[in-house]
């Protein structure tokens, strides 16, 4: 089991006194947390609490927005993401991302999966074929699409499209997989499949997932962080956070008294 392997690092991702501003508005206040390797860490909290902002900083997706600034640091296996020598493009190759709304490209299933290889300049047919099979199998989609790999990705169902997006995110074998409410746009059955997949994928990847769904957090995460108004209120083992929350706000949120 990889999670019992000696390479297990408890602070694989280290968020250090991190604050983040959208222009005048501060979204994250001085968060400090360590995310362990080969674990699923869930970020929960009410809308606007900063959980997505935090997640999107882990692959510097927020760089695209104008007028943002940050204080503190996020370290990936010891390396600062904001180090001037870090190239955003190579960083994003190490950190895959799955979005709330499934967003396959206007390409074939095959081309969707190998996109990250293509942009990295790798185009050996055998390597691409191998990657497609491996990624689609890992995303539990291979059996459903193996006969129509060259059809448009838009022909798939919503759940299949989201699993295709997961396959696309893991095709280039990143170390970390960020998931921003990956099941928000899916029906319960498709959600169940994605959750099973998450549990399977943590053997290979370190997963950080943002979710609004409490059951989902309990079902598939190992650790849970509760954010509220941009601050980290509580962070610990999922079982402990849900069964024995230390803070009254956490308890209020997970029992559904506010959202």
């Amino acid at each position, binding site marked *: 089991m990889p999670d019992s392997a000696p390479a297990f690092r408890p602070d694989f991702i280290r968020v250090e006194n991190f604050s983040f501003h959208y222009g005048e508005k501060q979204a994250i206040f001085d968060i400090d947390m360590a995310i362990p390797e080969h674990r699923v860490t869930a970020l929960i909290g009410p809308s606007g609490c900063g959980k997505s902002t935090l997640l999107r900083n882990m*692959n510097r*997706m927020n760089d*695209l927005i*104008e007028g943002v600034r940050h204080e503190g640091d996020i370290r990936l296996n010891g390396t600062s993401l904001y180090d001037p020598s870090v190239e955003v*493009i*190579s960083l*994003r*190759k190490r*950190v*895959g*991302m799955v*979005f709330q*709304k499934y*967003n*396959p*490209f*206007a*390409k074939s299933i095959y081309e969707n999966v190998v*996109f*990250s290889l*293509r*942009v*990295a300049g790798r185009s050996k047919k055998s390597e691409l074929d191998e990657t497609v099979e491996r990624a689609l199998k890992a995303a539990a989609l291979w059996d459903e699409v193996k006969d129509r790999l060259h059809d*448009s990705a*838009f*022909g798939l169902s919503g759940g299949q499209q989201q699993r295709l*997006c997961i396959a*696309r*995110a893991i095709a*280039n074998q990143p170390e970390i997989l960020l998931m921003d409410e990956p099941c928000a746009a899916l029906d319960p059955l498709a959600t169940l499949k994605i959750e099973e997949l998450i549990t399977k994928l943590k053997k290979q990847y370190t997963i950080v997932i943002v979710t609004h769904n409490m059951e989902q957090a309990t079902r598939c995460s190992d650790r849970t962080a509760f954010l509220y108004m941009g601050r980290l209120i509580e962070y610990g083992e999922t079982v402990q956070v849900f069964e024995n929350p230390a803070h009254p706000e956490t308890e209020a949120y997970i029992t559904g008294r506010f959202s």
Partner: protein
Amino acid sequence: MQTGPNNQATPFATTGRSRRGEPWIWLTAGGLALGIAMALGLFLLILIKGTASFWPGRIELMEVSIDGKTELIAGYITQETERRDGEGKLHEEIQIFRGNKDLNGEAFKYIDRANILKSSRPESLLLVERLEFGPAIVHGVAVETPQGRIEVASPDFMPALETMLRQGAEARGRLLKIERKQIGAISRELEALGRAEKTGAVAAPTAASRREVLQKDFERLQAQAAEIRAEVSKSRFLGRSADGREITVESGALLGVFESNRASFAGRVGEMAHRIWKFLKDDPREANTEGGVFPAIFGTVIMTLVMSLFVTPFGVITAIYLREYASQGLFVRIVRVCVNNLAGVPSIVFGVFGLAFFVYFVGGKIDQALFSDKLPTPTYGTPGIFWASLTLALLTLPVVIVATEEALSAVPRGVREAALACGASKWQTIQRVVLPASLPGILTGVILAMARGAGEVAPLMLVGVVKLAPSLPIDDIAPFIHPERKFMHLGFHIYDLGFQSPDAEAAKPIVYATALLLIIVVVTLNLAAILIRNRLKKRFATSSF
């Protein structure tokens, strides 16, 4: 909620004007109906008038009393009108096309119906197409060949006439080859020789001896041409007009004979198809009022394609920078307003700009740099199809930019983020994800630009369109593509026929036919582009478009 017996008190009751439903639907629907009616009316008018001009009617032979004298007139009835004279009396008039411009001076004549004494359709009347003076309407008399004379009564008359027509067409083909191609090649070489001699590339004695050889060739070809001419002048068609005057057409000038009054319905349909075909493939004759419009079709299509070739990449890369790279500040907003306003600038202004910038400035510089040996005769420093295409590319640029910008901004943010999250650079994201997704929208812009560009005439008059271009911009003479040449355009052809023609009545049917053709050409170009777009769309069914 109240549920009393008085249902007026229900909370969903409506009041006032909207009680009868939506009040102004009829107005909006009426606007649409009016628009459709006008568009349909215009199209039907052009369609009917345009195709009717090819339909071969029957020739009427009429006995008409004019100023007390009786005259015989034969011709096609082209129009029936009413005219009120000075005393308020109503006259029914007919306009007839009687041809024979060489005899009568004018091909059309108005006749008061009251003056027609007798009317018949004798089968002996023929419509004779010839190279000069427009068609003739005559009774056939005979054909004269070197082998002898065959009278119209003889059963050999029609076969002999057909042989003569074939021989005439063949002789014209040979003459064209000798005069345009072979003699043309000699004169081009002579010209080049002169220039080479002037610059010292060829020594004077060498040039002189070559010139002698060319001169000999030229004389030999001229002799050949004269021989062909002499041969075709030996055969001729003899006819007699309705009023008894002789008309002779040499076989070289005889294009076709049609037995209007004898032809069956199928024969007339065949003749109509034949006329349409000739209209499409022939060069214009006699100040464009006779013959076909092929050079104008060719010029329109080539110009539109070259224009699209320039405007598409230029517009797309401009829009990519504006939308994707430029920071969206005040400057970009101003640029965007300017681009939109550019679309509202009158097209003739673009023509003036094209003439000043492309033709005189850029063309003049090219001439100085590359064709200085030909100066002062300009090569590129004169209006031509290339400059016309560039001017129209500029004119249609805003359409492509605006459409491309809209298509780019319609690509969902999520898709861009997904590409970036896969480790794509910004350019890779644009090139591999954003552009393919916005391609249908971009092509819509190109289609609109083509539709606008193909129908534009005013700026072309300044930058390259002419009434009659002696040669096409693409032909079999090296270097095959001649972007500096002047060209003909269907839109300008309509204007030229309708308003600049010496014989407006004769040109009227061709105006309609040309207008119909212009519409067909524009629709065909657009359909081709739409087909390409739909094929692209189908490859990725159901996208954001």
